[in-house]
């Protein structure tokens, strides 16, 4: 699960939001479905129940099937000034979730009397869903010749006391885009690269402070929106990732050195050819006739087995950047900022999601650990660099 939220300037009218949701959902294609179990694969089927606006909770991004679940693979939540959408990653990625939220808010403000046009990524709800929006773009990108074995090493994982019972600790830092941009510019890197660099530097120092018997590489997974590279308008999942990595065994790293590695690893991975190769490897497994013939419960068993062996071992954590969010002018004046948040990861224990709206940059850490030492290292690093950070948290 992941979550995109918008903090409005006024308290949310839940009844009106429900109306807006009823109007938006038919336009959203796959979102109006629930997941059904077939013999060989899962499949989507239209859900006829009404999707309800739910109250927000202190532990967001909990697994789908809660007590008040209506079968949808997403949740719209509202609390005070906050409107959030939480989506199961099999439906879509951050881009799709954001499109849904923007369209929903556009309907909401239209009901409030604003005249919001269907521009800046807002979908027109008077139209029917388009087939290109439900396309599985991975299949189109697949190229059997570009399948390569990608070697990824076992990476360092943060240690700490795990919370019990579906607790997700959130610390969101809000900073200024301009201030961070100035810092990134000093090192001639992008904001994403700068944040990944700071994060890796913190993880690197934390690992060293634990005096481990075996020093492991630090590798942070950075999801990439493939729509920009492969000309796709799909609202389904269409992202891959890049893993910038430093081998902490090679010697001491300075912050600048880490930024240098991150910058070049990212640039090297962000080419159409490298991305095609990564996608093709996954699609190839899906096309394998033996795997296709396997009954679903065996597939699930093997997938979870492979995942527990390899899935998250190869990355220390995730930094995902939804980028600059823009909305139609008529909406912008009602919105204070956007937040992006990752759900509880199984092994990584902590993740970081970033997005920006106007000059407000939101860096949200979600973690299943009691300690906040990673967040502390990260934000105090920024403060020491002269970046002003304001924190919000659900921690007591």
């Amino acid at each position, binding site marked *: 699960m992941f979550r995109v939220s918008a*903090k409005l300037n006024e308290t949310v009218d839940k009844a009106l939001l429900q109306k807006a949701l009823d109007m938006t959902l038919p336009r959203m294609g796959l979102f109006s479905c629930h997941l059904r179990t077939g013999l060989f694969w899962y499949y989507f089927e239209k859900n006829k129940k009404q999707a309800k606006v739910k*109250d*927000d*909770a*202190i*532990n*967001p991004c*909990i*697994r789908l*099937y*809660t*007590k008040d*679940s209506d079968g949808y693979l997403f949740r719209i939540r509202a*609390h*005070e000034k*906050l409107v959030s959408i939480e989506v199961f990653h099999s439906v879509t990625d951050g881009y799709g979730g954001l499109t849904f939220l923007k369209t929903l808010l556009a309907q909401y403000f239209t009901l409030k009397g604003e005249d919001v046009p269907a521009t800046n990524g807002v979908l027109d709800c008077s139209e029917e869903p388009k087939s290109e929006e439900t396309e599985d773009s991975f299949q189109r990108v697949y190229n059997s010749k570009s399948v390569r074995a990608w070697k990824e090493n076992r990476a360092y994982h943060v240690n700490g006391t795990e919370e019990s019972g*579906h607790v997700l600790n*959130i*610390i*969101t*830092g809000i900073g200024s885009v301009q201030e961070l941009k100035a810092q990134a510019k000093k090192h001639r890197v992008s904001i994403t690269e700068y944040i990944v660099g700071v994060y890796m530097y913190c993880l690197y120092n934390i690992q060293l402070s634990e005096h481990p018997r075996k020093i492991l590489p630090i590798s942070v997974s950075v999801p990439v929106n493939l729509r920009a590279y492969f000309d796709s308008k799909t609202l389904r999942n269409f992202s891959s990732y890049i893993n910038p990595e430093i081998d902490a065994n090679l010697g001491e790293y300075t912050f600048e050195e880490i930024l240098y590695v991150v910058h070049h690893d990212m640039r090297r991975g962000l080419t159409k050819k490298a991305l095609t190769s990564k996608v093709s490897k996954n699609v190839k497994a899906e096309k394998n006739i033996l795997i296709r013939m396997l009954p679903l419960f065996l597939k699930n068993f093997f997938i979870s087995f492979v995942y527990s062996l390899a899935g998250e071992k190869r990355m220390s954590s995730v930094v995902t950047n939804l980028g600059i969010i823009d909305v139609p002018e008529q909406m912008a004046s009602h919105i204070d900022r956007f937040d992006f948040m990752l759900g509880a990861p199984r092994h990584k224990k902590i993740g970081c999601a970033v997005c920006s709206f106007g000059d407000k940059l939101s860096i949200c850490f979600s973690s299943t650990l009691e300690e*906040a030492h990673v*967040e*502390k290292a990260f*934000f*105090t690093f920024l*403060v*020491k660099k002269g970046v*002003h*950070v*304001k*924190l*919000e*948290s*659900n*921690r*007591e």
Partner: protein
Amino acid sequence: MSYCVNCGVELEAAQKSCPLCGVAVINPSEKQQPEEKTTYPKHRDELKKTDRMFWIKLISILLAVPIITCVITNLLSDQRITWSIYVIAGVFILWVLASAPFYFKKFNYVKMLLFDVAGLIIGLFVIEIYAPGNGWVLLIVVPIVLYCILAGLVIIFLAKSGYIRRLGVAAAIFISIAIMLPGLEVLIDIYNLNPIQIAWSWFVIAPCLSVAALLILLNKNKRFKHELQKRLHF
């Protein structure tokens, strides 16, 4: 507007302490202020619970099928219950093992093991009553099962609390086998009405103890362990 004196970050007005370091936000000159609204609510979402009774019922009905079939067949052919008692006892044991996970709200290996053992022993007793031997359940089965459970629990406890690890666990298993064997031989002698003496169990005890000693020795030698890990790594 408050700042953490420790971390230097600005904090949301509703925040009573710094989420990074836990230092409380106190401004002595400020009078009591009304509660600020937080971004996150206090309400907690809970996951849908598994309907445990449903699974117990389902397992019971499924397992009732072979019992009913066997009892009817048995009654039709022999006009009384004879061999079907074995099926009933066997299925009963299976039922206990299969439904145990649904009886307990939280997984607790002590409770679960004891529950399973109780089911196993009751099932075997039923067979014993209908197929009289020389008290084989009481004399041999019960002691073996109880010993295994006890030894298992002790080893699990030691491993969980970190007293022993990997090679240590293996050594503990070998030692517990070595301890069990003389007792087992005595029991078998009593059951067979033979004179009590410890004979064949020495042949098992000796290798068990030497393997355990070897494992403990290896466990102590860090360099050797490291070399072994390197050579056997896959």
